[in-house]
């Protein structure tokens, strides 16, 4: 009977652990707090703008024609988002190594992470380790000249499928 009592007691303990785990989960208000809409007509070529989405910095970089050429050459056009006739790099501005914010150097058209020396090019693809991959692309949906961050549009789903980015 002692074992049976032990079993009943452990059911209670597991149920309590479950409640504890759920208590640590992000709150619904935190989860719901974030759909950011960007007006893509407001950006300028090769000028990095940092937006905010779910507390994370989002880099938006409108590609100049030469940057588009570069992306074509490196087969990185797939990392860019086409809105109207323009290409945009929209990524989470946190280094994929350990989460620092890389700085943009417009004259070299690249990003340098001051924490551990990682580098990315103008499509945010990694060019120098330690980062394991390019900057992640946030879930987005193109809506005319607008982009909504937080919603998953068909272009984003394709990127996920092709392994161009990881879920953020």
């Amino acid at each position, binding site marked *: 009977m002692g074992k049976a009592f032990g079993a009943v007691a452990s059911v209670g303990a597991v149920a309590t652990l479950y409640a504890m*785990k759920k208590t*640590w989960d992000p709150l619904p208000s935190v989860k719901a707090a974030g759909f950011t809409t960007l007006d893509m007509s407001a950006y300028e070529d090769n000028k990095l703008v940092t937006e905010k989405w*779910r*507390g994370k910095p989002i880099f938006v970089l409108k590609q100049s024609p030469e940057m588009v050429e570069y992306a074509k050459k490196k087969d990185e056009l797939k990392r860019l988002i086409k809105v109207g006739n323009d290409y945009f790099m929209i990524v989470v501005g946190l280094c994929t190594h350990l989460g620092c*914010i890389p700085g943009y150097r417009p004259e070299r058209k690249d990003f340098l992470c001051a924490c551990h020396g990682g580098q990315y090019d103008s499509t945010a693809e990694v060019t120098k380790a*330690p980062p*394991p991959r390019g900057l992640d692309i946030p879930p987005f949906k193109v809506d005319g000249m607008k982009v909504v961050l937080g919603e998953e549009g068909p272009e984003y789903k394709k990127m996920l499928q092709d392994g161009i980015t*990881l879920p953020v």
Partner: protein
Amino acid sequence: MAHFEKATSLHDWLNQRLAIDTLRRVLATEYWIPKNINFLWAMGMVLAITFGMLLISGIFLLMYYQPNVDLAFDSVNYTIMKEVEFGWLWRHVHGVAASVVFLIIYIHMFTGIYYGSYKKGRELIWISGMLLFVTFSAEAFSGYMLPWGQMSYWAGMVITNLFSLGDLHLNGLVEWIRGDYVPGQAFLNRFFMLHVLLLPLVIIALIGLHFGTLRIPHVNNQEGEEIDFDEEAAKYKAGKKKEAKVIAFANDFLAKDMFVVSIFLIFFFYLVFYHYEFAMDPVNFDPADPLKTPEHIYPEWYFLWSYEILRPFSTNVGLIAFGFAQVIFFLLPFLDRSPNAKPAHKRGLFFYWFWALVIDMIVLTAMGKLPPEGIFSTIGLYAALTFIGLWIILPIITKMEKEVKE
């Protein structure tokens, strides 16, 4: 129910109910410590005193600290530092003690390694000590979050990101730990809870366990001599204190401890009044800014060696090396295959292994702070490899060791 008689004095009254005479005998006057020891044996007491200072100063800081992302920084730097009487003193004592406690822990650890105090029945002393080290590390890290400065925020970001475990991409786990996508209010609140309640409780329980593990194997001595404690205690009690190889915890051992403690306190308060900056990084006096990474991110000095083991490798290998560094010290009693529980200078190759480990960890510590570029990056890589290599060869060189006969 036990039989109670009318008490003849307060002492007798307490003695009937609490057995204070027995307690005193077991814990103090007849708790036997070897006589052949040096000041390094007082580090336990120094640690207990430092922990006491952390606890007391922490209580007063807790009375004014506000665990809120908008208020935390100013509650520390304005309310406590400018308004509260002696608030600056509590804070500097707390900050300096948090740093110095690790210096003493490392000295205490390396004393144990040097004198073989983790062998032959003393394994649990070592393991409970290592558990204390890990809990103290968590306590220090959670406390570092509380002022909510730039280094709090970014260290919190970097360390919690480790839990995504590289290519496993456990972002859900990271977000669960933070309670948010980035460190925020939920994060600050839960680390506050850990720092002021859960972890101190665990530390106090572990200190109890650590003392308990000492009881049966007894404290080691300077020569690794096996002492018959019953026989030596009998000599001591018979009044032959000079011949006995043991002394009583109180007042014999305590008197020496307190002298060492007094020297330590001079050093400690010199730091508190004249040299506190080393323990309070300037970067953390800039309020947390989620959109701006500090130019250099580095942990406090006592974490640098393990941070440097993470750094020179790619993410996955780095995490494995880091995990290795965290658990390997626990296994020391089992990796040391030697039959000798003797000081390192009597153990041949182990002596060189010991100093190689000390120097390697100092090199790792230095490289962990320096920017990971050029020569520093290379030295860091080799030091990390040396660290791993040292632990791999430990069972081999200790297995080769011959038994030392006195």
